[in-house]
């Protein structure tokens, strides 16, 4: 099998910002991750988007549901370790069929230095699928942009709960 090669030419965080703005996302909440730092900066500077920094990732699931009740679209940014914190709160999105778009940067799967990231990395996709969230995955910048565009349509137009997993290979090795 031939493995995808990251294309360093593509500024994928800016492209994701463009795609999410085009999807009329009006709220962004996050627990920081180095892989999301540029997207966090761009949303935080955008006066048309309300940004919430969370103490734990499941808060963003509840905020997104509240935003939708009030007529707004939310996106939630986290790293894979945060998915474990979300599981029970995801009952809300799944049973209420609330649109949900989570962008999850993967740790613990590619040139990972910290072994503590590995168990939750392994559990990320199965636990999301077990609670009823659809998982989409991207390993290259081109694929990621297209995937998030499709995921946004599925979430907001078809009332689905979607997590897009962003491969650690795409984000690059963490510098220590």
């Amino acid at each position, binding site marked *: 099998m031939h493995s995808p090669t990251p294309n360093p030419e593509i500024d994928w965080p800016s492209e994701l910002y463009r795609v999410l703005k085009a999807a009329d996302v*009006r*709220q962004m909440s996050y627990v920081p991750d180095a892989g999301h730092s540029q997207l966090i900066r761009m949303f935080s500077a955008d006066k048309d988007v*309300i940004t*919430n*920094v*969370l*103490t*734990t990732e*499941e*808060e963003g*699931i*509840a*905020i*997104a*549901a*509240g*935003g*939708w*009740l*009030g*007529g*707004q679209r*939310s996106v939630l940014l986290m790293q894979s370790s945060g998915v474990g914190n979300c599981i*029970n*709160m995801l*009952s*809300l999105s799944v*049973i*209420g*069929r*609330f649109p949900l778009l989570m962008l999850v940067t993967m740790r613990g799967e590619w040139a990972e230095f910290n072994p503590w990231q590995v168990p939750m990395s392994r559990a990320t996709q199965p636990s999301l699928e077990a609670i009823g969230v659809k998982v989409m995955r991207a390993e290259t910048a081109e694929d990621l942009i297209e995937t998030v565009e499709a995921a946004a349509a599925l979430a907001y*137009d*078809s*009332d689905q709960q979607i997590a897009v997993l962003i491969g650690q290979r795409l984000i690059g090795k963490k510098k220590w």
Partner: protein
Amino acid sequence: MSMSNPSQLDRRAAVAALLKNRADTLVVSGLGSPTYDLHATGDRDDNFYLWGAMGGAALIGLGLAQAQPSKRVLALTGDGEQLMGLGGIATIGVARPCNLDIVVIDNQHFGETGMQASHTGRGVDLTAIAAACRFAATATVRTLEEVQRLAADIAEPPHGPRLFVIKVRAENPPRSLPSRDAVFIKNRFRAHLGFAAA
């Protein structure tokens, strides 16, 4: 002080007094007794009842308040539910919405699961936590007269989020059960605000 004698206030009377003149306030209720208390005041399209998602009531309130800045939003919840969402108080303190009130109906027990004593009956003070998280106002009330005064006070627009604790008697009144169909309740709520179902 939270360690003083247990309150004798009836929770249904307290919630009825709190919401008597709610006007067009949007209300989200936390799972268990607060959901039954809200339903007992009358089923309305602008109620969103939780039957799960413990710890999420105030944060659903936050997302809603941010999406509907011209409306008042009230998250009506219990001590156990809010204790599970303690971090959310910090998040709301930072977000600083000017149209969100959290009201905790505090019986100092986990009433739904056998009346085990909760942290608030052992000295933990949710209003002090909210004040430390930069909430604009906090208070604890214990009598019906105080609840009536609180209801009048919270009608005034605040400068930031507020958290109020209403200490009530630890008992489970007859359940008043709203629909458990979250899709129905969601679509009804959104239709009330003028949004079409998908």
